[in-house]
């Protein structure tokens, strides 16, 4: 085995790990160098919920009725109990039941 063949997988994994770390770190570094105007502050305030909504909505709609109802069940239980684990279990149970019922 050549030296390249021996080292290449490690180099590949190191490259992926480095790229991912740069994603993790660059947002913080970037924002620490930007003057926070009121407009940027509003953007930042909208950002967490926007990231969550942008992740959830497409995946939920992809998943069809079980996903939508499962998410609805989890949110309702969360509002009622303020207890993440109960909400998560309710959501998963709803998805499992609806899928078992063939939906």
């Amino acid at each position, binding site marked *: 085995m050549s030296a390249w*063949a021996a080292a*290449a*997988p*490690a180099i*590949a994994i190191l*490259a*992926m*790990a480095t*790229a*991912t*770390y*740069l*994603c*993790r*770190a*660059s*947002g*913080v570094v*970037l*924002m*620490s160098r930007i003057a*926070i105007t009121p407009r*940027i502050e*509003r*953007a*930042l305030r*909208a*950002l*967490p*919920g*926007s*990231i*969550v*909504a*942008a*992740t959830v*909505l*497409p*995946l*939920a*709609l*992809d*998943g069809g009725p*079980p*996903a939508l109802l*499962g998410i609805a069940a*989890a*949110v309702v239980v*969360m*509002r009622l109990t303020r207890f*993440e*684990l109960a*909400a*998560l279990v309710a*959501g*998963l*149970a709803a*998805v*499992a039941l609806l*899928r078992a019922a063939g939906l």
Partner: protein
Amino acid sequence: MPAPTRPSFTLAGFLRGARYSLPLWPGIVVFGSAFGAAAVQKGLTFAETMAMSAFVYAGASQMVALEIWPQVWTPANIVGTTAVVAVINARMILMGAAIQPWLKGEPKARTALNLFFLTDANWLIGTGYHAGGGRDVGVLFGAGVVIWVVWVLGTLPGYFAGALIPDPGRFGLDLIMPIFFAVMLSNLWKGWRPARPWVVAGIVAFVVHILVPGYGFILAGALAGAVAGAVLE
């Protein structure tokens, strides 16, 4: 329990973050094991599999990397695979930007370490805690470290024994992250007015998701939401 409201970094916060992560452990182990099992099938060595989980440490991108894992690595396919991983994880740039005000007073070296453990789950836990008035950075770090350990350990049984649950969909486990995200969104909820950018984000993400294959929709939607937040008011 009252949360510290001044910026701080405490052991109590670390433990609090660890505790907040508990509900996610089963899901993380199931998906860690699914990655381990898929890695074996792709012919990865034990060291390669564990290095992926330990150092890349980003579930969706690890799975996609496996899908395009080449038989023989060349400089070209290293660049290609790395680019795909970077695109999937680009959402973390925004996640980091969103928590930067919270981390402002932190020592740089500690933030550098803290950010290595940044992932969707501990970001969500930290963001929910911060939205509730908490400022202890230890919460973010504790949740991150513990979830990393669970993810890395979860990879092991998959590598040696196959996926713990061969058909996670039957139990809804494939939807655990969207469900957890939705639960956290209800934690961030402060009425319709502040939520208008989220609606923009959701719609833009959905449209991009339909039109463009891949994971760019999260980034596109989140950016649209941030712009909407800046413009509206």
